[in-house]
């Protein structure tokens, strides 16, 4: 049995605490009284994963067993989450591969010939053949690539189908092949509570026309948080869309949940609580820290991006979307939820090297912003960890680095939009349409490996709730120019950052540090 989450109050005996900062980390001595929020210990993984998958497919929730839904002559489309999940990518074999293999076996047994596999990458970049192969495995890849295994193309007008509008007037337009199938089997990995459920098909296979109804400033300002579906306007929109598309196509949903084993050896100390580090862990920390600091940037980048997580799978659930997702959320909460009492004046975050959009790529400043003010700020249920008007202090070097192939519209967004304004609403009304419909970005999205032109805007909206909630944002160790471009201030040390935050929150603020990764969802009472 693993231990529940913990809120530690820093006292004289507390050792320095680990803080991530991009492709590196440091030990920070937080001021006495700082609350440090740890997730529950990593849950044990399933021993018999194959058996569990089979069991889930044969005894689904709210649905006939999968074999009963399969018949000869039918059209079957298997959709799977793209490389934005999980983070870091899972050590091979990926659990999606294991699920898909079983689904395909059952389909073969039932004599289903018309099978296609589509990645639910929405407006994310296409995955390279190697990346797809990593997810679906060698066997599936060789049998289906490239004709019957492909990326979803949200700009292929011929391969999109409009299903009308929800009762709120939201367009639902998704992948034609999927909608015109007799059955969609969605294979999902749930890393955080935001993912999965109604979101999977409604977002993963949608087009810009459909996505703009929930990926906008208004919706995100009313998603508090987007990791708490009942209180997330965004998820309400997903639900309406899912409801509408369920009228046209049946979805058999398979969701997998993972434990918190995010870092492989020799970095496994990153998964542990600092005062429980053994001598070996401490030695490993010192060695890793030293090597990491000394390594040339390129080599360091390769090591971090090459990391594959030794995740354990904690649950596999299959069947009707709603019922499956309920179980999934429970499993996610079991692994990530830590109860916290009350908000604080200052929230501190260590931002790691990875977010959903820079796998095998470069973490650019806009992604850093969205990781801090979007993903991590929203890792709460109930109330934000920081009070309204409070300050956020985040650690990241924030270099002005971009991947020219993956993030071309980000570069232009950074140079042309952020130089004019950082206000999400202004950005949305003034620039979104232009970037979203720009033929060059569309061309790159479809033919190269670029995120869609509108994607940096979504990243910016992701932080909209935090921006209107917070009184100040200070970036420790950040490039000053970059921080200022984002509208923030940079500080060289935590002490300086706290000094600066004093203008907003007074001389003796209450402090909270969210110790993540591994993933921690704060349940703020």
């Amino acid at each position: 049995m693993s231990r529940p989450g913990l809120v530690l109050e820093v006292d004289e005996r507390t050792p320095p605490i680990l803080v991530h900062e991009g492709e590196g980390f440091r030990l920070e001595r937080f001021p006495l009284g700082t609350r440090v929020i740890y997730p529950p210990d990593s849950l044990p993984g399933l021993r018999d994963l194959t058996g569990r998958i089979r069991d889930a497919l044969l005894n689904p929730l709210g649905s006939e067993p999968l074999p009963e839904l399969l018949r000869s002559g039918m059209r079957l489309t298997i959709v799977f989450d793209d490389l934005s999940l999980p983070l870091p990518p899972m050590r091979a074999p990926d659990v999606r591969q294991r699920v898909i293999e079983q689904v395909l076996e059952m389909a073969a047994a039932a004599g289903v010939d018309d099978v296609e596999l589509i990645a639910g990458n929405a407006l994310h970049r296409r995955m390279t053949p190697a990346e797809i192969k990593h997810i679906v495995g060698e066997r599936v890849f060789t049998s289906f690539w490239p004709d019957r295994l492909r990326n979803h193309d949200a700009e292929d007008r011929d391969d999109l189908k409009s299903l009308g509008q929800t009762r709120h007037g939201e367009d639902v337009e998704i992948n034609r092949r999927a909608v015109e199938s007799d059955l969609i089997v969605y294979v999902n990995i749930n890393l955080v509570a935001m993912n999965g459920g109604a979101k999977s098909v409604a977002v993963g296979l949608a087009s810009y026309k459909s996505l703009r109804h929930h990926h906008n400033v208004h919706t995100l300002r009313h998603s508090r948080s987007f990791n708490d579906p009942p209180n997330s306007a965004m998820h309400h929109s997903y639900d309406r869309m899912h409801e509408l598309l369920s009228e046209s196509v049946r979805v058999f949903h398979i969701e997998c949940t993972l434990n918190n084993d995010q870092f492989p050896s020799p970095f496994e100390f990153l998964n542990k609580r600092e005062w429980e580090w053994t001598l070996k862990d401490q030695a490993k920390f010192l060695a890793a820290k030293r090597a990491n600091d000394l390594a040339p940037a390129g080599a360091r980048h390769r090591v971090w991006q090459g990391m594959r997580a030794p995740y354990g799978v904690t649950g596999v659930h299959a069947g009707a979307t709603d019922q499956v997702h309920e179980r999934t959320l429970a499993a996610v909460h079991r692994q990530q939820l830590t109860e916290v009492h009350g908000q604080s004046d200052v929230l501190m975050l260590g931002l790691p090297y990875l977010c959903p959009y820079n796998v095998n790529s470069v973490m650019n400043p806009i992604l850093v912003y969205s990781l801090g003010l979007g993903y991590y700020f929203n890792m709460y249920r109930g109330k934000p960890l920081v009070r309204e008007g409070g300050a956020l202090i985040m650690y990241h070097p924030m270099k002005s680095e971009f991947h020219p192939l993956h993030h071309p519209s980000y570069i232009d967004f950074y140079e042309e939009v952020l130089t004019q304004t950082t206000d999400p609403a202004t950005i949305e009304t003034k620039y979104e349409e232009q970037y979203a419909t720009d033929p060059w970005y569309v061309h790159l999205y479809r033919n190269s490996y670029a995120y869609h032109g509108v994607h940096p805007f979504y990243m910016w909206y992701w932080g909209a709730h935090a921006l209107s909630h917070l009184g100040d944002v200070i970036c420790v160790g950040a490039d000053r120019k970059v921080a200022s471009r984002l509208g923030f201030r940079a500080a060289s040390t935590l002490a300086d950052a706290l000094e600066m935050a004093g203008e907003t929150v007074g001389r003796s603020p209450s402090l909270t540090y969210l110790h993540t990764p591994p993933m921690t969802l704060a349940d703020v009472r």
Partner: protein
Amino acid sequence: MSESVHDGLAGRTVLLTGVTGFIGQALLERLLSGHPGTRVVTLLRERPGVTAEQRLDELLAKPVFAPWRERTGEDAAREIVRDRVRVVPADITESVPELPDDVDVAIHGASIVSFDPPIDEAFATNVVGTIDLYEAVRRAGERAGKTPHIVHVSTAYVAGSRKGIVPETTLDHEVDWATELEYAVEARRTVERDSRRPEVLGRLRAAALGEQGKAGPTAVAADTERRRREEVDNRLTDYGRERARSLGWPDVYTLTKALGERAAEETARDLPLSIVRPAIVESALRHPYPGWIDGFKMADPLILAYGQGMLRALAGIPDGIVDIIPVDMVVNALLGAAAQVPEPGAPAYYHVGSGARNPLTLQRLVELVQGYFAEHPLPGTDGRGAIRPRDVTLLSDGRAEKMLGTAERAMDLAERALLILPSGERTRGWQRTLHKQGREVRALRRFRDLYGAYGAAEVVYADTATVALDRSLPDGAGCDSAVIDWDHYLREVHCPAVTGAFRLAPPHHPQPRPALTSGRPAPPAVRFEERRDVAAVFDLDGTIVASDVVEAHLWARLLDVPVRSWPGTLLPVLRSAPRYLRMEHRDRGEFLREFVRRYEGANEARLRALARERLADVLLRRAWPQAIRRIRSHRAAGHRTVLLTGTVDVFVEPLRTLFDDVLAARLRVVDGHFTGHFEHPPLIGEARAAWLRSWAREEGVDLAASWAYGDHYSDRPVLEQVGNPVAVNPDPRLYRHAKRERWTIADWDGDTGAVSTLLDAALEEAR
């Protein structure tokens, strides 16, 4: 106003030449403002599209006439000019037309401006032009039955390189001007003929080829001819300089002025002749206003160079005399001399200078100028406050020459070295520094050449006649240099006048901005004017992408084979690298033709598929984001975007959607395989320019309002076609050219450049 001068010139007609010059302007102004009873005839050269009358109008708009126009009123001033000034269009170096009969006085101020002109040009103006003019004056006088008075404007330095006191009398030399003139004219023919010898032309063409080879054959031809003309001019300048020195004059200017005097004496032996020899003429002491000056005169570049902190050493003798005289005193002397008609055959001579009665030594000049700048330093142009004044060392002639020689050789070497080095941000930085230092050395050289003869002469020009003349002039309008207070003149009048233009720029007051959080203020987003008839022409390799033909080929080969075969693929290309480099240096077309032979036998469909699926990403990764953004903003403004490249079309495909027109090289295909030859000659250098011109004509594109982007000197012909050329990360040669032509220079960079990250990606892909 003086009665005597009034008496002398009232009711008379004065002919002026050289009226657009410094002294000429002041003369005309004084005649208009101070001699209401005097009529003026001016000789003015017509310029293409500008008549002599229009030139007079331009002239009258100049600052020298401002006080007079203001006093009189614009309309009245125009009326007076119409009434009293006649214009005779003429170029005295060509021929002198018949002059109005009523000319009473001819003040001949026209002369060649340069000190080192080709010998024949110097003679044409200063000797031939003078004789022709005086003949015409005599004929006009004969027609009217009078003997017009000729006032010949010379220079004190006609005395030549000598020491001691020079009296006001005819020059002491035995040189026969007619013989010298004959040989000067002959020299032009000889030099022109010599410059057309095959050995010479071959040498010039080789030099032009080395410099301009990459820009194409037309550029080479034009450059060869330019070099020939330059060499002819230089040679004729040498002829002039050496002849002058051999006869005892510092340069051909003073030699021809001296011979011009002799010619004048002979031509006008039956006319009244006054010869006026001013020294170094500088800004006005009083009239038309203190400090009036037109352009920079002899001492001024030196003063400015000092003020700008560029002058640290100067060749000259500290106690040598710098014979400066304000322009209004010269004008006073000229008009005074014009009013005092000597007997025909007994010319009057006047030295107008300060050396005899109020000498200013070089040492004192330097001190006063230093004092002025210490009090009023020039504002810096870079927002870093005023320019720091420096001490100036006075060097002896020999030492200065040695130092300069060394500096020039070093500059030359450094420049050549930089042209060989590969281009980059650092090389461009060095080039910038060199450009600046080069300016300093060139300035020093110029000063040395100029002041070597004039600045520190140990000679005194006697001015008894001028002083006597001064007695006939009214107070405040005289020509006695003793009234000049050098301290006052240099620090209150002259230096402020010379530096005025440099102080006009508004002082730099940066807005205060938060110091810690903000970086450089973001440059405003580029927005072009919306136009349909404007094109933006881009080169590919090096301009849009950080790669080239060879790299594209290598990627194509490498991505097609497993990693373990990479060495085998790389080796043959690497082995040929020196050969390719040599060829590229010689002729890009030759290199391209040779290189594409590597595609011989390659399957077209396969290469196209490879380019589409794998190479596209390499190319996009290597593209500068700024370049892509620039192309897109041109498109957003409705401009036609054009890609002009020698790269094979297969590799251009990924960028095709950015362009309205793409012109790339095509390889010949037979039975689905490349033959290793081009389908058409690849478009390089001038071929691109020619294509662009004809394309623009057909499509109705306005090239003068268009844009072109290139990185290599071979892009120069294309860049020259448009009104807005941009040199992107230019190679040293193009950088130098762009700097000289004041083209925009763009530094585009990003993570794009790093081959290592790219290699990673390729490795990843290949696995």
